[in-house]
Structures are given as C-alpha cells and as structure tokens.
C-alpha cells in the first residue's frame, strides 16, 4: 500500500491545490490530511472547501477543534507570549472567516485514525496520540520515548504533524515514526516549497518526503490584501519562520534564520 499524508494546511489553498495535483499524479492508494486546516493564511473557507471536495479523509487538529467549537484560542501549545499573540491573530481571523457549515463539519472530524497496511498497525494523529497539540520535534524525542508512545498506543507506524517540520525515525524495534510536515507554511529552510510524506508499506516501510512548489507570491499578495501580519507574509516569500518558533529545540532553531 502507498499512503500519502499531509498536515497543517493553514488556509494555504494554493499549496493545497498543488499538493492535490501532485497526489493525483503520484499514484498513492490512500491519502489523509492530519488536521489544522485554518490559521496563518487567507480566506480559510477556500482551503476547507477544496479539501472537502477532494474527499480526502481528515483528522481534527487543535485549530479545527478550536475554530469548530469557538473555544477562544487555537490551543496551539505555545508558551512564549509573542508566539501566542501571533497565534491569537491567526485564530481570530480564521474564526471570523470560516463558515458555520464548515465549522460544524470540523467538530465531527476524528482526532485519530487507525488502519492496517502491509501487516502493520498504522496510527494517524495530529500532534501525538496522547495530546492533539503535542510537539514531536525530531531532536527532542529519544528513541525510548517514541518506542513507549508507539507501544502505549498500539502502533507499528505512527504518522503525526503539528510541528511544521518533517522527519522520519526508524526505531530499533522496527517501528517507525513519521512527522509528515505541513503544507501551509514552508519548513524553515529558506525554500518556498511545502512538504508532505509518502509511505510505502510493502516488504518494510519506505518513506519519502515530497516538496511541492506553488504560487506562493499570489498567496503572499492575498495575505497582504487581508491585512494579515507582515511577518506571516515574509515567511511565505522567504521560506524562513519569523513567528511561532520560540519552542523550537536548539538544533532545529539553528537551521533557521531567526
């Protein structure tokens, strides 16, 4: 089985369109969206409508839960006050521009999903299986911790998102953890493309990450016309994170510009 998974659309409807086109050409048997449809980008209804039309099954991320229930903030899990201030602006804009019908749909999305493929138990989640807004950074998780998490939640292959940075770890036990990245903002690598994951489950587990280019300049102009923070626009244009990065571990932080 060839499984594709992406997360964190963050209202980037142009990146979503490019990813959907890439999926059509890529020959995956199944695709999943791991949640966080809104936030950051412009016109959230556009991405939600496109995703729903695609028929791709979707998990409920923290932003979807918060926007769906109008909980007051995105529950992103940041602790830094500047990060939280930007997250609040994202949430407020997204809530104000998401239709009641889409919000009702978000409320009913599942938080996790299980499937079996290639003789393996696959668990899909947004942050982690135990907490929707948990950040699983590559450099901040020991093998022992990931082994425990997989064992505790009955997974041979765990797929997650939420952090915005994609990575894959083959664990000593033969289990695998894949953070599929996000397609709503670039991966803090100075490139404007966005990333998702393809996993082949046949005679083992093979993971490859796909980078997808899209019309990021058009998105940047849409963001400007919606008066979204210039810091967000800069990230779309440069590929470097300017906000919501204070909880990055040193290794990941060092790879970025700010």
């Amino acid at each position, binding site marked *: 089985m060839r499984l594709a998974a992406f997360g964190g659309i963050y209202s980037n409807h142009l990146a979503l369109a490019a990813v959907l086109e890439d999926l059509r050409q890529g020959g995956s048997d199944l695709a999943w969206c791991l949640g966080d449809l809104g936030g950051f980008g412009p016109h959230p209804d556009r991405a939600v409508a496109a995703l729903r039309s695609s028929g791709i099954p979707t998990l409920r991320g923290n932003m979807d839960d918060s926007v769906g229930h109008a909980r007051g903030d995105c529950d992103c899990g940041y*602790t*830094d*006050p*500047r990060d939280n*201030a930007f997250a609040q602006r994202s949430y407020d804009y997204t809530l104000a521009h998401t239709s009641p019908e889409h919000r009702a749909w978000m409320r009913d999305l599942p938080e996790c999903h299980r499937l079996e493929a290639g003789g393996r138990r696959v668990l899909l989640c947004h942050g982690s299986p135990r907490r929707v807004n948990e*950040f699983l*950074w*590559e*450099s*901040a*998780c*020991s*093998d*022992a*911790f990931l*082994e*425990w*998490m997989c064992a*505790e939640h009955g997974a041979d292959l765990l797929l997650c998102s939420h952090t915005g940075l994609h990575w894959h770890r083959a664990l000593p036990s033969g289990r695998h953890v894949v953070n599929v990245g996000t397609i709503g903002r670039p991966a803090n690598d100075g490139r404007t493309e966005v990333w998702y994951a393809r996993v082949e489950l046949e005679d083992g587990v093979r993971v490859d990450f796909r980078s997808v280019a899209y019309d990021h300049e058009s998105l940047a102009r849409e963001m400007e016309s919606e008066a979204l923070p210039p810091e967000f626009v800069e990230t779309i244009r440069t590929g470097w994170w300017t906000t919501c990065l*204070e*909880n990055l*571990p*040193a*290794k*990941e*932080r*060092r790879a970025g510009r*700010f």
Partner: protein
Amino acid sequence: MERFPAQPLHHLDVLWIQVAGTLCNLSCTHCFVTCGPGERRHPMMSRGEVRARVAEALGMGVREFYFTGGEPFLHPDLIEILEDTLASAPATVLTNGTLLTASRIESLRRLSDESRSSLEIRVSLDGLDAAAHDAFRGAGAFARTIEGLRDLEASGLLPIVTVTHTGDDDPLVFRERCLHALGALGLSRPRIKTLPMFRLGRETTRTRGYAEIESLRDLPESAFDPHRLQCGSCRAVSAKGVHVCPLLVDEPGGRMGERLDQTLTPFKLSHGACFTCYVTGMTCGNG
C-alpha cells in the same frame, strides 16, 4: 483533616538530574535549593550514578534529561556525562553561565553536532543590568554571565536565557524588554524563558516563605486539572534518591523513593511551591 489534591504521574517524560548536588560557585540570595561554595547537603553524582539513572529512565520511555545543581559546570565529568546521555536522548544543562570557558564551549558544540538529539544550554539571568543581577548573585556575576552568553551564541549553541518575572507587567511587554536589553548587550538571537519566584531555600530569608493561604488545601477535586503541573510528567534524582520535581529536592516530603519505579504513585500537593506552579501554570522545562 487537611485535604490536598494528588497529582498522578501520567508518564515519565522528563528526568531532572541534580548532577552537581548543592555545590555552586555563587551564593544567590534567592536560590531555592540554597546552593553555594562548600554546600554539600546533596553530594555530586558520579558519572556511573548518572549513567545508571539515565538507563533506568530510558527503560521507562523517558523523552529527555535536564542537568542541574548547584552549578553543573563545577562537575569535573560533565562533558563526559553529557556525551553519555546524548547518545540516547536530548539533554539540557541549567547553568549560571559564569564558568563557560572556551574549551567547554568547544566541547559542547562538538557534542551538539555529533548527536541527533538536541543539547540545550539554559543560562539564568536575574536582572537586565549588573546592579539588578548582581544584587542576587554577587558582584561581577552579570559581566561573566553575559560573556558566557555571547560566547555560547557565537558558537551557534543558541542559549535559552531564563529570567525571573517578578513584576506585574504584561508578559509580552516583559519579553520585549528582555530582548531589547539583551540585544543591546550584543545578543542577537536569545531565546527567553520566564520563571516565577519560588519562596524556597534562601528566598525565604530574602523575602519570606509561603503563607498559609498560599496552598492548594481543600481545592475541590472537580476543580483540579491533573494536566497542569510538571510533576505529572517528571521526577528528579539526586545522590539522595528520587524526588517529585527539581523544586522540592531539598524540601521535606519531596523525596519519594530510591528507585524511579518506586515513585510512580500520585504526589500530594501540600507544599507552597505546588501552589505557585498551579497558579502560574509554570514548568521548569524549556517550553
């Protein structure tokens, strides 16, 4: 009968290691563990002891380790201990930043580069100028700490600066003030973590200890959030055993057992520090 909420341990995500015991080169007036030169109430932990604790915690699925004291860089084997640990898990060192020699920083950068796991260096700063900082930490401490921070940043280690937030100003305003001051001191990419003051150790003499009202006594079970406190996911080890958290290693009732697997039981939140943690929602971790 007094009733306090009990905090379950959901999972051991974090193990704190009081590697330097209570030995420190400074005698800070607010130190919550009353560390200082010649303070040996908690001895240093040997490299072998630390290695055994790391193995014990890895067997329980721990995510990361924090090294504290006292001043960890007084430990003669700290670099080797970090090397041992980083082979398996992320590690953070909490330091006053005054003992960061060029060779130590070079070693830290090498360890960081060679490990898949993150190495975080967290430096405590108790004021944004020498007068404020040195009032807590002693004359000359500010200058040495800022030099240490600059050297860490120049090496690419991107230290976390821990600042104590004692005023009533808005957290965002406070953060910006810290960033501005650190920028003026030549630090271009400081990462800021704020902590509240704890009325423990020497702070009880500098100001006061906890008042009776500063307590979680009789907090209704229905109002208690068991996912708010760091002791739901951490333990601390010293040469004296296993403690509920790094704040209570030197407090009566903070010790829970000898082995980690003896400390999986809920902890009664009867200490004043539990009140501070619960009210502020703080964690000693990096996040």
